[in-house]
Structures are given as structure tokens and as C-alpha cells.
């Protein structure tokens, strides 16, 4: 509007809700560089999540247990279906697979130390098994990925379980990325690739396609390892009902289900934010698949993607999971994105909490890097202590909730202990909307 000589009020500038300053900045960045944005971490957009569920607690019809005094068990056994040596963990919170290469050796060691103190497992990741992790992790799950970087029968045999990675929540249908900055001699050697090149791990397995092949692949892995090790199949939150069904059909002992909030070391932002379903929408579908096959609790379900607290753990278990896995939260416990490095985050053009350029290898906290100076900032013993503390707190929190719901074991939590705060969460988790006995799609209701 033109200036009004009479001094009438002017329209105020209005920012578009569609073309936000962030959107516009990304358009300008794309126009200037010609390449999509690559970053680490999980989806940053807000999606229905565990915060949209609440526990009901005890009442006249539900008898609570005394906090601290009455026993509330937390252990979980994984791999009871076919493996000779199932894994027994003291707590149902495991450390998710994070690649060596993405993470430093000391970070892997810290994860191993912390998990071992807490009585749980860690998981290797793309790029193979390191001594740091095998040496410090009492229970180590060895990932079998499309890239097969570092894969060999000796490590397969010294693993405690094998996880066949079909997909990841952050990028169902996408392979891994490790950019040249992080490809040091050691990383290059382990992966059998030239130093300094941008590595793209394959998005599909090289020697099997489909569930029938997968069944035979599992037979081979079991034959190589004397049928000792539990075999997990990890899927991204794409089609959880069907993928869980097919994983069980192929012979999985354990299904690992990772929702879209799940972290990654490096992927296109467009992939992280736009592909896959939130974990909240996936758990009940996977459980339904297991129930339809008569396999719930026989094949264990581990879920992940944005798990932060004991409340999240308890909610996952109430929805039917046997255990959870954490990636991002474990890194934060070690010191990732700690405000104490704020000046350095600022120098990288970001701020504590938002730092996600993990692929660049310049992590001030020394976790997602291969730079010797930065790496040395993480003391693996102290890191392990912190992770153990955090895992303990998560467990105590989950127990607190379970006791309030009258449960003497975390795995006795059930959907009936929950209500949903939003229609979306109610529909996705198949949990009644608070104040009602209804959720969208509830059988026997018309809408």
C-alpha cells in the first residue's frame, strides 16, 4: 500500500506460513550450491509422539506397587525363538547401531562401557566391528548391512547377536553416507575403499531380494555361527505390519523397528523429514502382526526413534514392545550438543542443540568425528559413566510408572494403562482419547 498522506494505519508486513524464513533460506542455499542438504540426526519436524500419550495410573480397580520397595523387574531375554544362546539384558534399553566412522573409536568405547555397566547391549553399525567396542561391550550385536563393510566370519562368531539391517527409520529405502572428511586411513581400511572419497553404503543387500531369499540368508548365517546367535531384523517404519510379518516368516528371532524420528549419521534432510512413519504409528501395527502370527513375545520387538526418557520406554512397552533402542539420546548423554561448547558451535554457524552436521567430522564434543584432537575431548571412561547414569535413570523412571500402574515387571505394562491426548495419537497408537473409550478406527465404531 502506498503512503497515505492522511496518516491512516498501514498494513503490517506478513510472513508467509508456507514460505517461512527457513524455507526461503533453504531455497537460496539450494540455488547457490546445487546440492541437497545433508545432515545427521532424526526428523526435526513435530510429529505425533509419546508426549501425546499419558498413563492412567492406579485406581480402585488397579492396585499400585510401593515405589522403591516392591519389586519391579526390568530384565528382558531376546532371541528365544531359534537361537541356542538368547541374550539376557538387565534393562530393556539397548544402544542402537551406530557406525564406526560416523562415531569415533573412543565414542564406541564409551557406549560399550556404559552399556556394560548398565547391563545392556550395544550394536556395531556400518563399517564393521571395532576392538574399542568389542573389548568394552559385554553384549555386542553385530550388524549385517547392505554395504557389508568389514563383514567377516570371525567377527560374526565373536558377536553375541546378529542384526540384519533392512532399513532405518530416518531413511527407509536409503543407504548410508560417510563423507570424505571422515574417511581416515583406519576407516578406509576397514571398509576397503580409497581414503577421502564420499562413501555411499548400498541401500539394498547385494545377495538377497525379498523374504524368501532372506530366509535362506538367515539359514546361512545360522549355519556359519552354529545356530548360537539370535538373529535380529531391523526395519524402518515404512510398512510395519507387513515388514514384521515378513521378518518373522523369514525366521527372525527379534524384530527391530525404527520410526522416522530415529537418528542417522548422515542423510539428505529431505529424506529424514519426509520418508517413513513416526514410531508411535508403527508399534501397534508391528505388535498386531506378531499377534496375528501367534508370535508376540516369542519373537521379541525392539523399537526406536526419538526415545528420550523412562516415560517413553514405559509407553513403548505398554504398546507391546519388549525393549527399546536409543541412538541420539545416548550421544547426548555422552556430551553431544552440550552447551559448554557453545562458542565452537557458533563458530560452525550453529548452536548447541541444533548441531547436526555430524558428517563434516568437526564435532566440538568429539563424538561424531575422526579428528584425533577432537576425539580426545571425549574420555571414554567418563562417557561410559554418564551413559550408565542415564540408562539407570531411564530405568528408574520406567519402574516408577510401572509401579504406579500396579506392574511388577516392565513388560506387564499394557495398552489399557494409557490414554491419548490427541486424536492423531489416539488413531496411531490405537489408544482411547483421554476422557473417552474411543479412538478413531476402533473396531465396532463407525468412524
Amino acid at each position, binding site marked *: 500500500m502506498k503512503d497515505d498522506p492522511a496518516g491512516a494505519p498501514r498494513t503490517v508486513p506478513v510472513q508467509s506460513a508456507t514460505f517461512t524464513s527457513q524455507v526461503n533460506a533453504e531455497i537460496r542455499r539450494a540455488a547457490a550450491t546445487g546440492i541437497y542438504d545433508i545432515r545427521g540426526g532424526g526428523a526435526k519436524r513435530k510429529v505425533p509422539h509419546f508426549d501425546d500419550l499419558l498413563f492412567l495410573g492406579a485406581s480402585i480397580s488397579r492396585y499400585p506397587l510401593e515405589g522403591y520397595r516392591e519389586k519391579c523387574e526390568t530384565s528382558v531375554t531376546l532371541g528365544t525363538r531359534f537361537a541356542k544362546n538368547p541374550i539376557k539384558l538387565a534393562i530393556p534399553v539397548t544402544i542402537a547401531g551406530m557406525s564406526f566412522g560416523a562415531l569415533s573409536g573412543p565414542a564406541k568405547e564409551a557406549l560399550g562401557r556404559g552399556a556394560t555397566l548398565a547391563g545392556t547391549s550395544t550394536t556395531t553399525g556400518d563399517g564393521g566391528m571395532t576392538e574399542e567396542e568389542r573389548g568394552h561391550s559385554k553384549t555386542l550385536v553385530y550388524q549385517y548391512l547392505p554395504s*557389508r563393510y568389514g563383514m567377516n566370519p570371525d567377527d*560374526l562368531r565373536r558377536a553375541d547377536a546378529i542384526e540384519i539391517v533392512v532399513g532405518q527409520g530416518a531413511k527407509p529405502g536409503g543407504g548410508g553416507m560417510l563423507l570424505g572428511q571422515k574417511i581416515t586411513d583406519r576407516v578406509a581400511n576397514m571398509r576397503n575403499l580409497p581414503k577421502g572419497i564420499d562413501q555411499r553404503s*548400498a541401500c539394498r543387500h*547385494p*545377495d538377497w531380494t525379498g523374504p524368501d531369499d532372506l530366509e535362506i540368508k538367515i539359514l*546361512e548365517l545360522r549355519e*556359519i555361527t552354529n545356530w548360537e546367535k539370535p538373529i535380529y531384523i531391523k526395519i524402518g517404519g515404512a510398512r510395519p505390519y507387513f515388514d514384521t510379518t515378513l521378518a518373522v516368516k523369514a525366521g527372525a528371532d527379534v524384530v527391530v523397528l525404527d520410526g522416522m524420528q530415529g537418528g542417522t549419521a548422515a542423510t539428505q534432510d529431505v529424506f529424514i523429514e519426509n520418508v517413513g512413519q513416526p514410531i508411535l504409528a508403527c508399534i501397534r501395527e508391528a505388535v498386531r502382526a506378531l499377534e496375528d502370527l501367534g508370535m508376540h513375545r516369542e519373537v521379541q520387538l525392539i523399537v526406536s526413534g526419538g526415545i528420550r526418557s523412562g516415560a517413553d520406554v514405559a509407553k513403548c512397552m505398554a504398546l507391546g514392545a519388549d525393549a527399546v533402542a536409543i541412538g541420539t539420546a545416548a550421544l547426548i548423554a555422552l556430551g553431544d550438543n552440550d552447551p559448554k561448547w557453545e562458542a565452537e558451535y557458533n563458530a560452525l554457524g550453529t548452536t548447541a542443540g541444533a548441531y547436526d552436521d555430524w558428517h563434516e567430522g568437526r564435532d566440538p564434543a568429539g563424538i561424531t568425528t575422526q579428528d584425533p584432537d577432537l576425539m580426545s575431548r571425549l574420555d571414554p571412561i567418563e562417557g561410559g559413566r554418564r551413559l550408565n547414569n542415564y540408562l539407570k535413570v531411564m530405568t528408574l523412571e520406567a519402574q516408577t510408572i510401572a509401579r504406579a500402574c500396579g506392574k511388577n515387571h516392565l513388560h506387564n505394562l499394557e495398552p489399557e494403562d494409557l490414554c491419548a491426548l490427541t486424536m492423531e495419537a489416539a488413531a496411531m497408537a490405537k489408544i482411547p482419547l483421554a476422557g473417552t473409550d474411543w479412538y478413531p478406527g476402533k473396531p465396532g465404531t463407525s468412524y
Partner: protein
Amino acid sequence: MHIFDLEAQGLRALNTTLQAQKNDTNQTVWEVLNPKGSHAIAVGLDAPIEVNVRGSTGYYCAGMNKQATVHVHGSAGPGTAENMMSGTVIVEGDASQYAGATGNGGTLIIKGNASSRCGISMKGIDIIVHGNIGHMSAFMAQSGNLVVCGDAGDALGDSIYEARLFVRGSVKSLGADCIEKEMRPEHLNLLTDLLARGGCAAKASEFRRYGSARKLYNFNIDNAY
């Protein structure tokens, strides 16, 4: 020589027995009868033994082999010698898809033809095929050598890294970032040795060499597919 009847004694017993052989075993030669296309025959071996499989095998025969020589007197199903570390695998007949996939070392010799994705993601293995190979062979091949005395199918060496490909016959098409390269004396020497190891009569001079243009090594928008 030890004879093992797979049909009568079962896969578990076969692999347990063969895997139990140590470096100093004196039970060095094994005959496996009645394979009848079974999967995962002689997988995870780790001793310098010789295993003769009398007939055709299913998926993943000799998977993750170390040290052993596994000789299939028939044709082999998908993923033969997958992720082999060392040793030798010989297939008298044809091999199905993904032969030698992700192999880290050792030698795979296929006397007949190999199907698609031969040498996919190979990481140091040497593969010598007397006949032809199918499409998408040497996809993302990282290192090692693939020798083909016959023809290669579509998209040979797509997204290849440092593996060397030698083809005597025609190549239907090359995959992304795979180009023909000069055959220098060191390559002729290497190939002569590979042909001898593979028991091929062909001459090194009859082959062409293919490898990576290395244009996809670091992201450049102008080279993206």
C-alpha cells in the same frame, strides 16, 4: 577321503563337521554326495581342506569361506562364495546371481556362465568366469579382479570403485562411472596370472580392461545420475 551323504546326514551335521576341521587336520579331502540344490553347503569353513560337492548346490554355497577349496561338480545357486575371505571355490557348471558377492579375498572360478550381479560389492576377491556374465555385474565393486572370458551384460561395473574388470567378449553396456581403461603391461601380467589360476586358455592380449572413472567419488552435481 571322507564321504558325507548330505541327504542322509543333513546340513547341520555337514557344516558342523567341516567347520570343526582345524589348520592341522589330516582329514583334508571331503566328498559331499546328494547336495540336490541344498542351501548353505560348506559355509563358514576355516581350514585348508578340499570339499568336492558332487552335484548342484542352492544358495550361498561356500559362503564366507576361509582357506578351504570348495569344488562344485555341478552348477551353483545364488550367492556362491559370498563374502569369501580366502581359499578357492570352483564351479564346474554355471553360477546363479550374486556369485562372489562382497568377497574379500580368495579365488572364485566359474567354468560355465555367471548370472547377473556377479562380483557385486566385491572387496578384494578374484573372480574368473570362463563363460559370460549377466547384467549389473561388479556393481559397486570395491577391489579385486573380475575376469570374463565371454561377454558381459548390461550396466557392467555400475558405481564401481577400485576393482579391475577384464572382459574378452562384448560388453552390452557400461554402468554409471565405469569406463574402458588402458591395458598396461602390469595389467597384462596380472591378467596372465589370473587366467592361469583360473585354468583359462585365453590370452591376456585378447581382453579389454574396465574400471572407475572416479567421477562419483566426491559429490559433484554435474556428475550425478
